[in-house]
């Protein structure tokens, strides 16, 4: 566990609710993320993890709920505030979503130029530094279609980091990867955590979660079923459903790191 600072939480979400038709995909979810803290979202597919993460940066507009970053409430109807907020919230997708028409370098550079309005030189240096950081210096001229899944995901992490995010949201970052490519991505995420980046990470990698998380949030049917430190959730969860799910995951992924 990392020490908590006495300041206000980096990110606070309150009673986030999202409905599709009559189905409530996310129901009154609230939590706070502190400086340097890592929370892992676990739970079955279709349980609302992905929708929740996308609600947090308004890629999906929640029907109800409030969100604060660094103590400031974000109103998504204020376009300028929304765009600034999204820069500060790095998002990593399960299927990478790299821009297919741009090289690895171009993917990292484009938002620096067009969103942060950096000079060509500054953007170049920054993009190179971020790609270096994720170990892709020699692949900068390659297009997404020429990269492996693990490399693509590392480019997408570099792309997000270049925006100087205050918090990172990672939506099953290794779920679309071949087993032997998972490690390279996990080690990048681990290094990020060690640097103190606050993160919310949805994953099925149970050992990784146990290793990295300050807290595990177990979600099913759109609600938070249980919350607690990994040692508790993974072995002696109060809720029978949580125990059952974790036991299955351990059987499946327990030794896949």
């Amino acid at each position, binding site marked *: 566990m990392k020490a908590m600072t006495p300041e206000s939480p980096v990110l606070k979400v309150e009673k986030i609710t999202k409905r599709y038709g009559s189905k409530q995909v996310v129901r009154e979810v609230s939590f706070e993320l502190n400086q340097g803290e890592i929370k892992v979202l676990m739970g079955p597919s279709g349980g609302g993890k992905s929708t929740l993460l996308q609600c947090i940066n308004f890629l999906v507009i929640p029907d109800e709920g409030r969100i604060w970053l660094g103590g400031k409430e974000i109103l998504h109807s204020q*376009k300028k505030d929304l765009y600034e907020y999204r820069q500060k919230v790095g998002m990593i997708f399960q299927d990478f979503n790299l*821009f297919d028409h741009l090289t690895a370098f171009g993917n990292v550079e484009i938002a620096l130029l067009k969103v942060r309005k950096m000079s060509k030189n500054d953007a170049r240096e920054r993009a190179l530094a971020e790609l270096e950081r994720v170990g892709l210096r020699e692949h900068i001229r390659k297009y997404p279609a020429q990269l492996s899944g693990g490399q693509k995901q590392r480019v997408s992490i570099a792309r997000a980091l270049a925006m100087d995010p205050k918090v990172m949201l990672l939506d099953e970052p290794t779920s679309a990867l071949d087993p032997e490519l998972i490690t390279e991505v996990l080690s990048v995420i681990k290094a990020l955590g060690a640097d103190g980046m606050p993160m919310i990470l949805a994953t099925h990698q149970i050992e990784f979660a146990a290793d990295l998380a300050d807290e595990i949030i177990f979600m099913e049917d759109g609600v938070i079923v249980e919350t607690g430190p990994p040692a508790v959730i993974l072995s002696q969860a109060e809720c029978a459903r949580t125990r059952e799910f974790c036991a299955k995951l351990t059987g499946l992924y327990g030794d896949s790191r």
Partner: protein
Amino acid sequence: MQEYLTAVGDALPYLLQGVLVTMSLVLGAMGLGLVLGVLLAVGLVYGPPHIRTPFKLYVWFFRGVPLLVLLFLFYFGLFTLVGINISAFTAAVIVLGLISAAYQSQIFRGGILSLPEGQLKAARALGMSDTKAIFFVILPQALRLSVPGWSNEYSIVLKDSAVAYALGVAEVMARAHFVASRTYQHLPLYFTAGVIFLILTYLGTKTLRVLEDKVRIPGYVR
């Protein structure tokens, strides 16, 4: 046969000057159609209902009314009514361009819709406004995907341009008709006009094929 060859030989320089006119018509119309078509496509895909509805009406109208009717309607009707004095050539470029825009909008719309949803999401997640996302992420990819459909549109506009003859624009067909009705050598002259159009179609689609390879994203499997 000798007679035919002489007729063609005599008329050829005059017909070939018409190629310049025809190609100016085609390139002008396709350029206008490209700009309007992209705007229409973006509006049709991302626009709110009060934009989508008039855009749909536009596409319906220009795809639904025959070219000849539109040429006459605009040149003799609308342009005269509002007091715009333009040449038959300009009128033909505008009308062909407006029609092509309707068709091109559907090509680009298909290109945009074939992109994975995640592209727009990733762009937004980086703090891009929708306008920036469309400009820097969506269109560069959608336009690449549209090149094959676009080469189809080229051959259609090329052939449609022959109808500008009805306004008296001195393109290839008008010139063939002019010479044929003076010399009574209908067969060789219209035949030659046809061959010229075939060659122009070939050259155009070939060029677009080269463009298609040139803009292809490396590593992307067809």
